[in-house]
């Protein structure tokens, strides 16, 4: 899938976590145009149309779902670069993580995250949260 076709970019290194998230989105028909990337540096290339994605038309998804701990470049750094760049700062970014650490939450909001979701252990609750946030950002939210 080319960057310009993507509606949801999921950056998550754990394939099982990713599968659960995608399954939850699919259940609500929200995963049709989803791209999953499992590495922070690759994600930056995709977002900023560099490296293997150089020359791609554009990247303007409705939502980016970011894990915090990622190989090479972590989620907070991706968030920082996106929110500092005029091309990407309007894209809604949601941190989807297991970390309840206050400093992660505070830092994320400082960097301009649009939402911070702590994934519950309970799969039913998790599915519900993912569905709700997908709904909100893909269907209800009017981009500025």
């Amino acid at each position: 899938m080319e960057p310009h076709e993507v509606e949801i970019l999921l950056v998550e290194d754990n394939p099982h976590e990713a599968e659960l998230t995608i399954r939850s989105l699919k259940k609500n028909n929200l995963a049709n145009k989803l791209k999953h990337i499992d590495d922070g540096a690759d994600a930056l290339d995709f977002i900023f149309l560099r490296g293997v994605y150089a020359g791609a038309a554009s990247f303007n998804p409705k939502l980016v779902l970011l894990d915090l701990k990622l190989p090479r470049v972590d989620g907070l750094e991706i968030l920082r670069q996106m929110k500092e760049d005029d091309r990407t700062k309007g894209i809604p970014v949601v941190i989807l993580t297991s970390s309840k650490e206050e400093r992660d939450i505070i830092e994320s909001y400082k960097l301009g995250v649009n939402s911070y979701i702590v994934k519950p252990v309970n799969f039913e609750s998790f599915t519900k949260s993912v569905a709700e946030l997908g709904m909100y950002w893909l269907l209800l939210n009017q981009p500025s």
Partner: protein
Amino acid sequence: MAQSEKIQFQRLFESAPGLYLVLSPDLLIVAVSNAYLSATMTHRETILGRYLFDVFPDNPDDPTATGVNNLRHSLKTVLLTGKAHKMDLQKYDIRNESGGFEERYWSPVNTPVFDDLSAVEYIIHQVEDVTEMFRLQKEEIKQRDALKESNRQLLLEIEEREKTEEQIEAIFNAAPDAIIVIDHAGHVVNWNPKAKELFGWGLEEVKGNPLSESIIPHRYRERHEKGMAHFLKTGEGPVLNKALEMRALRKDETEFDVALSISPTVFNNEYLFIGFVRDITEQKKAEEKFKGLLESAPDAMIIADREGKIVLVNQQAVSLFGYTEKEITGQYVEILIPAMDRDKHVGHRARYYQEPKVRSMGAGLELYAIRKDESRFPVEISLSPLPTSEGMLVAAAIRDISERKKAEEDLRQLNKELESFTYSVSHDLRSPLRIIDGYADMLRSDYADQFDEDGTRYVEVIKSNARRMGQLIDDLLNLSHTGRKELLMHQTQMNRLVQLIIDEQFALHGQRTEVIQDKLEPAFCDSSLIKQVWSNLIGNAFKYSSKKEQPVVKIRSERNGSEIIYSVNDNGVGFDMQYAGKLFGVFQRLHKITEFDGTGVGLALVKRIIHKHKGRIWAESEPGKGATFFFSLPV
């Protein structure tokens, strides 16, 4: 008598060397000698034929003048008796040319001169001017008085001096110190009874003998004599007029410690030396005792005087700072302080003397000291005033806290590691659990038709345990957060807080439980943390009484001195008090998980929160009779 003879005779009379005045019986001046005129500063032509007292009136400025009266009386006597009358010495002042009076003393004799019929025809008034004589006499009296007075003074002085000497003698004899007087050759001149008492030698035994032969220990005798000789030669006496401490010898050859001061004085052009000697054996003993005490102190001890000079140190101080006792004694304490703090310290030191009391130095500040090799180390110092006979001293107990600082730093490091550990736990442990739960869920929903009853149950067990572990991790993280969190203190309405919790419990368990809630005292606390306390205690009360037919939960508060005690009581299963000690430990549970759900973290969290508030927590119970949990918060 022929006229010429008469004139000749008159001239003779007038020229007579005596002072003569010739008066008629009615006291008119008939004749006068030149000497008289000169003595009374008068002239013959102005006084001849005049009334005596018109010419010589009393001095109007002298109200005590009696001259006129006395003379009139004498002249009358002569006229009446016809006999000569010698008057007493008279003060009879004389008018001078300018009209003022001059003081004169006279010795007059009035002699009658008879006519042929033996009647008094004239009176010869003869006087002698004794003014000068009188003045001389008065002067002499004055001198004699002065002499007398000076004699009296002299006598008084002698008396006084005798008294002083007696006093000095008494002091000499009764002085608490031995007093020894030696001459320039070092021979004993005098020595008081105290000296006899102290050294055992009587004055008669030592008088005239060299001092070095009696009280100076043998090994010091040569030095003593050299010192004396040096002083006599050069006038330099480094031991003079100073408080010295040395060893002295008794007659029985035993040695002891004395304090000594020697003053030189000059008497009859020869030097005398006066020595005051005191036995300081007891004082030395006390000093030794004090020194022993000082040495037994676990800390380095530095004792300094008002000027900040080090007076005494113990071995611990010597090894801590790397100076020898000799090197450090007499130095300013600032030598032990890093250069940048020295100036400040001088001021602090002066202020301490204004309000000396036992306290720690620089409370709340990090203090450093420096060793002789200039290495710095962190210290803790406590100060105490030490009143002594030599003035106020200050004792400083100094503790090297390098080890503790390092331990603190290690602990900080450890805490940091723990923090990153819990961070990892938070992220990395929850993720696999979610995957387990998620995949079990997927299994259940995607393959439901292929599971029998057992298969379905197994999946449920996987799921419920994954969740339980999720809960455990959350509780543990909460406990660890609570330990590190700063308290946010507010005045808190406990009634409202408790009501919220009860509403939650009713929502979770239904309204079966009877709740008796007193009006609760408000408290000053971190309300979000205390809410967790109430939530755990009330939650437990609901939980452990849930199997009762009629569960009852009572919530109370009570003021007790400087604290408020809150309690939550239930009529549930209770527990055996012998396990009460385990109640507040992490993962400690007194009930089976199948009887009552729970992670065993709740009460550990409650205890941590209450301790952070400087409160107490405890519980009372009996199996089957319910339990009461108490916690207190300081007012």
